[in-house]
């Protein structure tokens, strides 16, 4: 298959694909496992009116917060946007819409989108604001709400290693939303630390099979720590 999926630069991997008003799934939990090079390239591309599905909205000056700054995001679907002044100010000024989805519901909605499941029932959110306007159904005497799946026009994700076929391996908690978003994207682009030839990865260790990944590019920025917490070395 050669390396038809491998691209040279974060900007070239995006240019012929992005367009205004897309729905984009963007991986990461905070800064961990976030495809920062691709987000920066998305800013550079200048596309706007985006709906972005991501657990968080970046940190001031980093990641999605930069796209909020530049006014390219019309709407966020997230579970938590705290500690983010860029988002808060855009939201209070009516410059961005927000849909909260509970973290587990959101991750399952994304997986369902990739798995051809248009909707599923969950107890999460029953009796809360999240349940408003959603169909309710009773199973074995318990009430559940119907949640709809999320399909993305484009998914931007981050992994540790890719092979040339797009098979991906994640590292530790940087996995988070990335595998489901890979499934859910009509086109999925993975930013990785390392690209290896096919046959290098053990097929039992592959987390995301290449069928879910259309393009691969090497990351151009280092990994970041959002909040360093330590214990003391014993005296």
């Amino acid at each position: 298959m050669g390396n038809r999926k491998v691209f040279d630069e974060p900007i070239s991997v995006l240019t012929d694909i992005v367009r205004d008003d897309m729905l984009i799934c963007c991986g990461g939990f905070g800064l961990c496992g976030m495809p920062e090079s691709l987000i920066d390239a998305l800013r550079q591309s200048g596309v706007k009116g985006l709906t972005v599905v991501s657990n968080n909205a970046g940190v001031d000056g980093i990641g999605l917060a930069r796209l909020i700054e530049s006014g390219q995001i019309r709407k966020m679907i997230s579970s938590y946007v705290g500690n983010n002044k860029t988002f808060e100010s855009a939201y209070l000024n009516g410059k961005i819409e927000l849909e909260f989805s509970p973290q587990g519901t959101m991750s399952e909605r994304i997986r369902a989108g990739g798995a051809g499941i248009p909707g599923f029932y969950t107890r999460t959110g029953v009796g809360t604001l999240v349940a408003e306007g959603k169909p309710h159904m009773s199973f074995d005497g318990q009430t559940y709400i119907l949640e709809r799946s999320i399909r993305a026009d484009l998914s931007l994700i981050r992994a540790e290693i890719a092979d040339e076929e797009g098979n991906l391996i994640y590292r530790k908690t940087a996995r988070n939303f990335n595998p489901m978003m890979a499934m859910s994207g009509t086109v999925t682009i993975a930013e990785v630390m390392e690209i290896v030839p096919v046959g290098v990865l053990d097929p039992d260790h592959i987390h995301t099979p290449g069928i879910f990944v259309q393009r691969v590019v090497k990351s151009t920025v280092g990994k970041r720590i959002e909040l360093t917490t330590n214990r003391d070395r014993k005296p």
Partner: protein
Amino acid sequence: MAKRAAAELQNGFYVNLGIGIPTLVANYIPSSVNVILQSENGMLAMGPFPYPGEEDPDLINAGKQTVSELPLTSYFSSADSFAMIRGGHIDLAILGAMEVSANGDLANWMIPGKSVKGMGGAMDLVAGVKRVVVVMDHTSKSGSSKLLAKCTLPLTGEGVVDLVITNLGVFEPQGSHLAVKEIANGVSENEIRVKTDCATVFD
């Protein structure tokens, strides 16, 4: 409170600790009790904070703090993590709260009019985990009771709280009232009655 909450942990339990006071519970786990901590961002058997210089950007907890690995650690996706939570595989969650009602309703994610941060995984945790224990101050900074006949804030979950541990005592939501299971040292029944905005029944 964190110490009292630690007494809820049983050997072999899989436990999810919320951000804030609940995190402190980990410091009070007796050495005879082995529990495995789950972090909803995709980790089972979470270790302590790393030593300085050993932080790993790919290794954080649900509060985005750097943590460490243990020999029995495993990693998984967010969907698999919440399958664990929603599917009832976690024995215990210990969470903070703004309000709890006598029927176990919980409010801990939103104050209308204030900047909204989001519920994160809290709604999934309270809906899915086998036993939900709340650890919180008995009253707000302004002195009003956080234990109520009915929550005034938007709910995180309906009838989900199994036990509430406050600085005044330990309480069990019973539907129409709170059963007072324990009273903290130096606290009177009367103080609890005065500072609790719902019916209480002393065991």
